[in-house]
């Protein structure tokens, strides 16, 4: 509970890193930048002090690697030097094994100097001092009237031209599929696949030793047929299970292969992109040719997007019977993995509270299919489709005002014009107060 006085002081924020309080196990993972700066750290590569100037009093945590150069020295680096450094990095990247590449990536060696995407206002230009002007015809102005007003920079970031990346830095890339699937025909197939994979992941785990998280990659192609057509039934205590235990392993291997392929494809795509950026056409073409032999494609997005349409979903639905629908799912681990797969494939984030209440396959389906509760009564009435169909009932999302009533009969424009002609307030009473007569009558209104 908060105690008195609770005035957050910047001083306490600044000294918390140097004298760590750490009363909780949620101890600070990173030291505060300001605290680090208080000992006037110096950039290792460019020998430039990163101490924050005294005029600024905001504190930011800079997560950039220390090896990266500071903004202050960014203009000093020559483009040739940068390119050469990047080329050297690519050379090491191509020769090293995948494991080495991963390690070096974590160490931040591949951070390449790049152009800043933010456009800053130009430095202000100052007019020469009136006394220093030699021109005999010059007459200093005595007032600022007629001067053009430009304004400050408070709206600077509302102009899209000030972002070189076209506002890409504001885009959010979440784990969930960006497209939320709402079609029940698709959702049924996705749920079945998610449950089969959930059971397999429960049995064999998500393989934490593998660099690729196999629960996070969507395999397409024949993965749909092979996972969805696996026979499911009610097992012990009516719990959902697969008829053949061997199917679990098959499904898991299928997922692992897809994840590994997606991981290697991604790395290959990155390398090719980097080479093209550095304009090393020959090397890039060679790499593309090598990759194509191994079955990689530049436009491959199997790992992040589902390829499923209604026709395919209906076809897939013929491969199973309805036994599985009555089965119960109580295992939280199976539900966790199934929910994770659903989040990736269908874009639904199922909360823990909802997962706790889900006990059967039918519950699961309902949770996915049921649309979110309407926020307004009018929306709910509209969705219920009982009242709007009646001929003598009209539903409005808000109160019908006298102005609305005039608009409905087409009289409002006329009234408005007449009021304006007489210089009377169109809406409200303007400067005119209440009737004085009301006061005489002793009304308390």
């Amino acid at each position, binding site marked *: *509970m*908060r105690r*008195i006085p*609770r005035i957050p002081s910047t001083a306490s924020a600044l000294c*918390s890193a140097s004298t760590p309080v750490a009363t*909780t*196990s*949620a*101890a*600070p*993972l*990173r030291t*505060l930048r300001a605290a680090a700066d208080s000992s006037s750290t110096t950039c290792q590569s460019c020998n430039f002090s*990163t101490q*924050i100037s005294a*005029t*600024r009093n*905001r*504190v*930011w*945590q*800079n*997560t*950039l690697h220390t090896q990266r150069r*500071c*903004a*202050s020295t*960014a203009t000093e680096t020559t483009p040739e030097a940068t390119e050469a450094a990047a080329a050297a990095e690519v050379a090491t990247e191509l020769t090293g094994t995948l494991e080495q590449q991963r390690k070096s990536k974590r160490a931040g060696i591949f951070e390449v100097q790049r152009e*800043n995407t*933010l456009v*800053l*206002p130009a430095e202000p230009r100052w007019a020469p001092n009136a006394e220093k002007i030699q021109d005999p015809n010059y007459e200093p102005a005595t007032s600022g009237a007629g001067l053009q007003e430009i304004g*400050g*920079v*408070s709206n600077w*970031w*509302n102009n899209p031209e000030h972002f070189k990346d076209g506002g890409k830095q504001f885009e*959010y*890339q*979440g*784990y969930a599929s960006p497209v939320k699937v709402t079609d029940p025909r698709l959702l049924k197939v996705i749920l079945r696949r998610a449950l089969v994979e959930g059971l397999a992941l429960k049995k064999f785990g*998500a393989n*934490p030793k*593998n660099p690729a*998280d196999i*629960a996070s990659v969507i395999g397409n192609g024949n993965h749909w047929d092979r996972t969805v057509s696996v026979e499911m039934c009610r097992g012990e205590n009516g719990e959902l299970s697969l008829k053949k235990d061997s199917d679990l392993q098959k499904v898991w291997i299928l997922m692992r292969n897809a994840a590994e392929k997606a991981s290697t494809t991604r790395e290959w795509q990155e390398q090719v992109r980097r080479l093209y950026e550095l304009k090393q056409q020959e090397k890039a073409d060679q790499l593309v040719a090598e990759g194509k032999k191994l079955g990689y494609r530049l436009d491959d997005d199997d790992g992040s997007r589902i390829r499923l349409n209604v026709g395919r979903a209906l076809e897939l639905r013929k491969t199973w019977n309805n036994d599985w629908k009555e089965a119960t799912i109580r295992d*939280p*681990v199976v*539900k*966790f993995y199934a*929910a*994770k797969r659903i989040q990736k494939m269908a874009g639904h984030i199922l*909360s*823990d*509270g*909802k*997962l*706790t*209440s889900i*006990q059967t396959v039918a519950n699961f389906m309902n949770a996915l299919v049921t649309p979110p509760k309407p926020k307004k009564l009018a929306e709910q009435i509209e969705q219920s489709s009982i009242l709007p169909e009646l001929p003598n009932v009209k539903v409005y999302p808000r109160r019908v005002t006298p102005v609305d009533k005039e608009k409905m009969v087409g009289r409002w424009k006329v009234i408005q014009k007449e009021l304006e002609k007489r210089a009377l307030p169109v809406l409200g009473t303007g400067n005119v107060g209440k009737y004085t007569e009301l006061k005489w009558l002793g009304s308390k209104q």
Partner: protein
Amino acid sequence: MAGKGLKSLNEAMKALSIASQPCRALPMRQSSILSSRRSMASVATPPAAANITRSVSEPWQPSMSTNTTANLDNIASAAKVLTQGSVTNVPVTVYSFPELEPRSLESYSARHLHLPLRRDILHLAVIYEGDSTRRGLASTKTRYEVHGSHKKMSPQKGTGRARRGTRQSPLMRGGGKTFGPKPRDFSTKLNKKVYDLAWRTALSYRYKRGELIVTEDGLDLPLPNDFLWLAGGGKLSRELEDGYVRKWVHEFMTNLNWGKEAGRTTFITGDKRPNLFTGFELAGAEGRALELWDVDVKDLLETGRIVIERSALKEMIKDHQSDLVTRVAVQGLRQKGPKLAEVLVKAPRY
């Protein structure tokens, strides 16, 4: 006539008898899947003494409310039928931030995160906090504290006016205040076990509504590197810096559907995170950030959702379970409370 009247009276009486009632089911509330709601089964069982005198701070448990094993069996089996299996543990998914990838799964006791909603207890806690937060600084001067001479202002007699003593008299303008406010402590008392129960009830309420989002440790706003680079190098003026962060936080929260339109969001961390705290200081319309020590029950009930680090949640529950643990050992054993944050699925490493 009389015979006919008696006949109809007889018929009417018959119709009222229980035997003639058509087989009619009692209008029972459909049993919820959430077993935390008190089931009919426990009400129907013979009342055990322990059950009647149950303390408010003691959480209700469907399978542990009575002493006898027979009753236990009855209740457990009845509860199973009615509620499709009692909930003793609830899962907590730990997400990565900001991607919201489900990374790991932990299990908490239902007595920690799945308590029934008790509005009365929440009310007690919120009022208690409100009282404790009152500063109580209102202060006035009595006639003995007002500065000035104590000389008699006018003669007792002969002026034709009222008698006037000193200038400090409460009757005089500028005089002291009779019975005026003095600085005082408004804080009230609440049993710790009740307060702790309120705390976990608030968390349970959020949990059930899907408004408790647990993230991995190190929760912070991922401000773009380009901005941090410029800000760190002192290239941005204060106005530009604040304007950028305000816009970025707004866009970020809107994309997540956590912003102003969605009722704001409270972020809770173990310690101060510069980007998160400064970001929401600037864009307060989108949400707020609180350190663990700064959180109270009212904070947990405000805003659209709570986003909390996993270790902060663990710490929070550990600090507020006085009704579940005891320091008194009986036969060398001490009740330590349910296990906290049992890991069911470890986060994958890659």
